């Protein structure tokens, strides 16, 4: 047993990651390596994971610097599909803007935008079948929008009003829509990862043809569930697509705190023996192509894929967050992969299928439509303004049938309300 410090060894030191830029710094992303389009050509969907390791360190791209769709990953989408993709991304952006404002106006308690990451929910969903099950985190509202879930129902949920399908029980944006293949969102990060694997295993065990897709952020990859999920998926060759939206930030912690200083998130697939793809997350066509590759692979019993979307969280983590307190201003403007909406728009213009005028008109149309929907939703009430589900519903659905102790507590709550608001309260 050696006590004390040995003179001939340099002292150990603890490495605590630090982002390159803090408030007041000028961001400079010139060290980010952006490979040429098709630096690695698209492999066959049945490729062995061991043969495609390079894709986990590369960056799948389709749109070149002139916004043309080129290379082996080009999914060859027609103009109508591309315009629909752009429309959904713009609608998502309009929805986010409106709901962020609604929170600032005190109409709801909380909101989270997905600004800058629209492709990772819209383009991915377009590459899936409509009955594939999505296990989202809280920043994939684009899935619902892409699948034409009623916006008014999303707003009702955000307002926790009398029209809220979740009866005011859930924090805003924690949607659930089984009929739309959208799994109930949980506040607990990455719990959806093993659940998506279980869903996919169930589908495979029943000789179904449906697959599952699951999303988490870069920060959440540090959770134990991430490891459990990848292990189970590899063991059972589950038809599941793991997606890591690497937007560089987990609230105030940069991705270095999830291990990004040493390797890519896609490369984590390698250790599990599953396919890993790293993709330009702001290139909607590349995102679509990667998802399509992984979906085809899963659907043909080729097993799971882990896709990392390299992107940037354009705004604050949530309405409760001020990114100016921990990161350099203007980072998003300087982000070398640009903005996913702008890049898709520019591509459509380059191929002669879109114009700036059409674009401006569409933004106005969507903004007006969202505004009108908002008015409709507010007919059902806003948070804290009386219109909500009957109070008794607080006690429902804890169990399939309400046990005696909840019935007792429900009665107690109703008596409290009578005390608070007087006997005429019930007649309201």
């Amino acid at each position, binding site marked *: 047993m050696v006590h004390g410090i040995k003179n001939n060894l340099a002292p150990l030191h603890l490495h605590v990651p630090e982002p390159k830029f803090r408030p007041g710094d000028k961001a400079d992303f010139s060290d980010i390596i952006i490979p040429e389009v098709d630096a690695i050509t698209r492999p066959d969907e049945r490729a062995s994971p061991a043969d495609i390791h390079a894709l986990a360190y590369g960056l799948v791209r389709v749109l070149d610097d002139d916004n043309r769709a080129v290379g082996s990953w080009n999914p060859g989408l027609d103009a109508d599909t591309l315009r629909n993709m752009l429309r959904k991304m713009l609608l998502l952006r309009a929805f986010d803007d409106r709901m962020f404002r609604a929170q600032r106006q005190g109409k709801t308690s909380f909101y989270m935008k997905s600004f800058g990451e629209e492709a990772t929910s819209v383009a991915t969903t377009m590459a899936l079948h409509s009955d594939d099950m999505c296990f989202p985190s809280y920043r994939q509202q684009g899935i619902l929008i892409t699948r034409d879930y009623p916006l008014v129902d999303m707003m009702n949920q955000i307002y926790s009003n009398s029209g809220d399908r979740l009866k005011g029980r859930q924090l805003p944006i924690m949607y659930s829509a089984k009929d739309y293949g959208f799994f109930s969102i949980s506040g607990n990060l990455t719990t959806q990862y093993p659940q998506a694997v*279980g869903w996919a295993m169930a589908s495979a065990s029943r000789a179904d043809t449906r697959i599952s897709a699951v999303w988490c952020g870069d920060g959440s990859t540090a959770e134990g569930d991430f490891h459990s999920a990848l292990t189970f998926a590899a063991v059972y060759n589950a038809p599941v697509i793991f997606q890591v939206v690497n937007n560089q930030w987990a609230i105030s912690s940069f991705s270095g705190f999830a291990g990004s200083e040493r390797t890519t998130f896609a490369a984590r697939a390698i250790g599990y023996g599953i396919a890993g793809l790293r993709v330009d997350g702001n290139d909607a066509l590349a995102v679509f192509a990667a998802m399509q590759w992984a979906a085809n692979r899963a659907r043909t019993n080729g097993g799971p894929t882990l896709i990392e979307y390299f992107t940037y969280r354009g705004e604050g983590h949530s309405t409760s967050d001020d990114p100016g307190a921990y990161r350099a201003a203007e980072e998003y403007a300087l982000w070398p992969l640009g903005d996913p909406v702008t890049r898709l728009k520019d591509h459509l213009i380059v191929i002669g299928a879109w114009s700036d005028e059409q674009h401006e008109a569409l933004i106005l149309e969507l903004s007006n439509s969202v505004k009108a929907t908002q008015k409709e939703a507010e007919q059902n009430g806003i948070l804290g303004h009386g219109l909500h589900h009957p109070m008794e519903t607080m006690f429902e659905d804890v169990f399939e049938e309400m046990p005696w102790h909840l019935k007792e507590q429900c009665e107690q709550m109703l008596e409290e309300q009578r005390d608070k608001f007087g006997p005429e309260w019930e007649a309201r």
Partner: protein
Amino acid sequence: MSEPATKSMNMIEAINSALDVMLEKDPEVVIMGEDVGYFGGVFRATAGLQKKHGKTRVFDTPISECGIIGVGVGMAAYGLRPVPEIQFADYIYPGLDQLVSEAARMRYRSANDFICPMTVRSPFGGGIFGGQTHSQSPESLFTHVCGIKTVIPATPYDAKGLLIAAIEDNDPVVFFEPKRIYNGPFSGYYDRPVEPWSKHDGSAVPEGYYRIDLSKAAVVREGEAVTVLTYGTMVHVVKAVVAEHGIDAEIIDLRTLLPLDIETIEASVKKTGRCMVVHEATRTSGFGAELAAQVQERCFYHLEAPIERVTGFDTPYPHSLEWAYFPGPVRLARAFDKIMKD
């Protein structure tokens, strides 16, 4: 109609039979866990089931409780009825987030959009020289979680009927199996030979399908002097002590801890005027505290003595000093003396 065929089974065989019956009856039932497939489980609870029902119905898993329960939640969301096994209740903690934050809340948070009809089986309890991590009784961690049902059988007959009911229940159920009584009831006298189940009531188990409703306690001995609320292994320890000392106790095996059969408890304590709660788990914030509080609120004017709690001590479960720790005959006899004196 002829009586259904019964067979003498120990608790392991009864659990195995329940799983077999449900695999046969419901194609959505799947069983998974560490060593449960080919090998048939470290306690043999799943012996022969993979061979009979196939590898997609009964299969081994990686050693990951978080994964086992998380995957189960996803399977339930798909529409299956998973019955995962956690090898020892002492190892359920890595799966707690999935149980507490996910399984228990699924129906509520999605307003019935998604449900979780999953039954997590796990051997639990002490009395086997299992030391710290093969002896724990963590039931109060689950009774404290809204949305989970907690079930603990005390006989082979109950084990099969309750397990079938748990699997058929559309809510998540934690099903704790007292491993001390897998092979025979335990009197608490560790120095006496254990008799096999075949010599005891409760081992005659119908071979086919039957169920025992959840949330219904069993009065295992009627009495007038004191009500004893207990479950699992302790049902048999209490029975032995009561018989030895000639106490006219009413012994209630709760069977389902949550939702609790409060009517049976209330009626009994109002009749006897005394109440003792007995469990192996540690004392502070144990399930006994909830039982004592419920009885105190509902039966206050009927109580002739303070409610007595006989439990494990507030220490991790020791190895060598197991029989000083376990709430055995001496601790019970002293508690009976005290509660009958008042």
